[in-house]
Structures are given as structure tokens and as C-alpha cells.
């Protein structure tokens, strides 16, 4: 079913997703690859140490997409 038509956004959101190729993990890898291509970010390379998981999460939020 290559084309589906909906009368509203709600109807579209309720529709089952078309079956995709490959396993869920392959779909995940493809999705990430597309996302990295659209919003590339620069992370300094290397090893960084954190005393808590929360500190690690905060550090991640400092990195903005490359312009």
C-alpha cells in the first residue's frame, strides 16, 4: 500500500505503520544514520568520566548541532 489517504491528522496517526524492511534493530540503525546526516554534531573525541549518570546526561546537552 504505497499511498494512504487520511481525512485528518488524527486518522493518520491511528493508521498502522507500513511494514519496513529488516529487523527492528536494522530500522533503528537506518533511522540513526539519517538523523546524524540531518543534524550532525561535533563531540570532542576521547574519554570523559562522570561521577553520576546525571552528570553524564548534562554534559551531553552541551553539544549543539553543527551549523
Amino acid at each position: 500500500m504505497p499511498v494512504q489517504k487520511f481525512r485528518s491528522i488524527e486518522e493518520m496517526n491511528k493508521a498502522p505503520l507500513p511494514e519496513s524492511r529488516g529487523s527492528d534493530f536494522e530500522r533503528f540503525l537506518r533511522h540513526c544514520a539519517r538523523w546524524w546526516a540531518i543534524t550532525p554534531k561535533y563531540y570532542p573525541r576521547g574519554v570523559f568520566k562522570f561521577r553520576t549518570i546525571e552528570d553524564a546526561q548534562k554534559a551531553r546537552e552541551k553539544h549543539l548541532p553543527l551549523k
Partner: protein
Amino acid sequence: MRVLRAFESARLEYVLIGAAAMGFHGLVRATEDLDLFIRATSENIEKLRSALREAYEGDPNINEISAADLLGEYPAVRYVPPTGDLYFDVMTRLGEVTSFETIDAEVKEVDGTRIRVATPAALYRMKKGTVRSQDHVDAAALRERFSLRDEG
């Protein structure tokens, strides 16, 4: 996949958590990191270093990943490899509730590589109590997809 294969050949004891684990369960969202919960022993940390060296051609930065840190003051270590497209958050402790010995995990196989992945219920337990908004979204998605209930 290359690095997951290296983890298997090094016999690293780990459980994949976070967005990549959700991907294995059909809840696909983009992420920039692989979250690894590893058994906290010196031997296992050496296996991690060895697997990363194999996957990233001996990147000298890997020498900075140490058992002294991961078993001591720094239970969370981030490694950003030279390729820069995907980084690793390696954790040896996950708060009071989750331990490596008791975390619910299942083995998934991709292209012949076995990967230990946290179950939807384990991911839900980890994500529901944090302060991070993305975790709340993930927890809600897990709860809905797998009809999970909060334990009394």
C-alpha cells in the same frame, strides 16, 4: 555492528540499555550513543578495552578507560571514538535499584552476533523515575507498547 561483534568476541559481559535497546524492542528513535551497563570487574573492563581497541584500530584514548575509575569514583565513562558518529556511555552502577546481577535481559541475534539487551520491563523501571524528559517519553512509550504496570 562491528563493535557489537567485538564485544562478543571479547566475551564482554554487558547489557545494552537506552535507546538502542528500545530499538531492539521495536520502539525506534534516533540516538547518538550506545548505553552499556557492564559487569563491574577489572577483568570485564579489560575485555571492554580490548573490544574497543579491536573495533577502533587501537585508538590510544581507550587507554584512559580504567578499572580504577569505573570501579571507583567514576561509574559513568563516555568514550567518543575517532569516527565521531556514535559514542558509548559505559556504566558500572545504575543507582540503588538496578544491579548487573539482577537486571532483566534477553539475548537478541543480529547477523549472527548475540547481543544482551535489557527487557522492556527493565528499561521501563530504569526510565520512569529519572528527571530527564526524554526518559519520561521513553517510559510512556514502553508502558503503552508492552502494557506495563507499575509495581506496587
